[in-house]
């Protein structure tokens, strides 16, 4: 059985269930307790769990992430909200040099079960410093897990998985997804396994491999293509590290044509990793080059017309798929 709820409600259910299940889970961040989060994504939690377990903090990202690591090393499962994903930059030492490396450097004496929640992505003219998708940096940093929900089901299942994971996990949640509704299983113990992709739609002509908010855009593209008789597979990676390479290889083998798409900058992005994997391991399966879509290599601009021009949307994804099928590449 499932219910239809918003992405925000799905994250709230995940937080509530995990905080009830495990008293060492606590939450800290800016504007989360009294205000309920700038997207309302924490509303009601301090009323149930108290202001010790849902903490408003100073605007001190380095301290928050550092303290998250320290708490994770000593028996807690902290969830740290980054306010906007862009502000992870203020805590890069804590993420990259501490959280990611301690277990390895210390010969596996410790675990770092910390979750960073990072609202990211392009939305409503938020401008260059509040719109980025930075997952590529963290995929490039050994020691971290990176999960990116595409819908309410993912939001709940991946957040629960991130909190339960013994590895430091970045949970990038696109700001535009918070109000979107979708079905979520009724099961209290519903968890989306980290490292496993989901096939959203099956079609044998072309595969669109994507994640996060771009999954919805890819499904929209697939609908456009269907009207033209082109059947598209849509792979929702859900986790970008560890990547589900088997699911990608399987999609290549079924369709022989692949579009990789994400909202993050195209150059040096996760799509580059996926495309090169396909080139190395699935070369003989390909009927066409892999096409890779991502944001242009510029900061995200303010003016709506500029903003909407620089990242892949449904029409652009459909166009790429169409060109592959018609061998127009």
């Amino acid at each position, binding site marked *: 059985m499932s219910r239809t709820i918003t992405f925000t409600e799905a994250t709230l259910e995940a937080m509530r269930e995990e905080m009830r299940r495990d008293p*060492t889970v*606590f939450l800290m961040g800016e504007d989360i307790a009294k205000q309920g989060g700038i997207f309302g994504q924490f509303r009601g939690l301090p009323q149930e769990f108290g202001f*010790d*377990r849902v*903490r408003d*903090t*100073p605007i*001190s990202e*380095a*301290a*928050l*992430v*550092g*303290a*998250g*690591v*320290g*708490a*994770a*090393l*000593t*028996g*807690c499962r*902290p969830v740290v909200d980054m306010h906007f994903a862009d502000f992870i930059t203020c805590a890069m*030492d*804590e993420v990259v*040099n*501490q959280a*990611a*490396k*301690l*277990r*390895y*450097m*210390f*010969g*596996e*004496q*410790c*675990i770092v079960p910390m979750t960073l929640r990072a609202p990211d992505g392009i939305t409503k003219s938020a401008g260059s410093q509040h719109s980025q998708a930075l997952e590529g940096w963290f995929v490039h940093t*050994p*020691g971290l*897990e990176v999960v990116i929900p595409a819908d309410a089901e993912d939001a709940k299942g991946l957040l629960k998985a991130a909190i339960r*994971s*013994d*590895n430091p996990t970045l949970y990038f949640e696109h700001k535009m997804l918070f109000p979107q509704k979708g079905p979520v299983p009724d099961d209290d113990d519903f968890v989306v*396994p*980290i*490292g*496993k992709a989901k096939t959203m739609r099956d079609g044998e002509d072309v595969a669109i491999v994507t994640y996060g908010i771009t999954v919805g855009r890819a499904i929209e593209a697939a609908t456009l293509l269907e009207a033209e008789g082109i059947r598209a597979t849509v792979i929702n990676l859900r*986790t970008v*590290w*560890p*990547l*589900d*390479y*088997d699911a990608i290889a399987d999609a290549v083998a079924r369709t022989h044509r692949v579009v990789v798409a994400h909202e993050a900058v195209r150059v040096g992005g996760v799509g580059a990793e996926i495309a090169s994997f396909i080139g*190395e391991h699935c070369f003989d399966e390909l009927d066409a080059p892999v096409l890779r879509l991502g944001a242009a290599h510029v900061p995200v601009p303010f003016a709506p017309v500029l903003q909407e021009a620089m990242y892949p949307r449904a029409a652009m994804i459909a166009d790429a798929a169409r060109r592959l099928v018609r061998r127009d590449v």
Partner: protein
Amino acid sequence: MAKTLTAAVHGERSDLGIALLRTMIRIRVLEEGIEKHFLAGDIPGFAHLSIGQEAVAAGTCAKLRTDDAIASTHRGHGHTLAKGTSMRGMVAELFARATGICKGKGGSMHIADFSVGMLGANGVVAGGFGLVAGAALSAVQRKTDQVAVCFFGDGATNRGPFHENLNLCAVWNLPAIFVLENNRYASTTSTAETMKIDDVAIRAAGYGMPSAIVDGFDAFAVYDAIGEATARARSGGGPTFVECKTYRARGHYIGDPERYREKREIEDVMTASDPIVRMQATLGDALDAGEFEALWTQAREEFADAVAFARSSPSPERDEAFFGAYVGDRSAGDPVHAVESRERDAFMPFAPNLGHGSQGSGH
């Protein structure tokens, strides 16, 4: 003869003094040994010595329980040993052996021992503040009376995480203790050139945190200040800042040409203030010459045993390089394992002298 700033001691206080002296001598012997073996090529990487600063590590850790946490710095051998890590585990780690406390993956700059609450040396200046704030926060969340201690140098107090974490610990009243080893140099630059104040402790007042300034060559003085701080922290009174005025008698790192100070300065400070000589003088008749010598002999034997242990230990297997970053990377069936083994397989064919399933002898 060293100046004696502390009055002669008796009874329990002399037992404590002997214990502190034993720890300081063990640290001194360990670090002089590390210096020798580093220069002989037995120890790869970087190593930073705390000779001259032993009273801070000894005085602080003597006041802590095993389940209290400490975070250390790149200059962390003394803290690690004083918190209770075995010399064998440390020396084997520095010698990059599989039997090292971190399996040979950390080395001097990244040594840790979670079994004694030692959350790690840190290769990043100011890297420990957040870990300590978090360990202190964790004690509050888990409702224990543990405390967390951050060791750091004067240089770290010019970094942002110092300020962010002191403020956080103060405003949340966390059981944290900030132990500044003001050794007068930030790497190779004199503190006088990097800050406009003489006493860094005044910075604590800016965060509403009580502070103390102590003679960092006097292990008793450090011990007593930490005693007040731990009592405050354990009773819910919040964090304390303790500035220990000390001195780094060696270069920033082993091999430092030390162009930034005169040899004479080092001799003057150590002649007047060597913490080991100081404690011996303070103990006076409570410790005879034979007992003092025995402390050195025991420490040297302990170090020789540790070196022998390290030398007889294997290097890590080469395949170990590919494991340990993730929980699950050793478990077939775990998605992390699957991905990481794919990465290893992609790397192997192009790696010199390294085939699939390589069992490198290593040494």
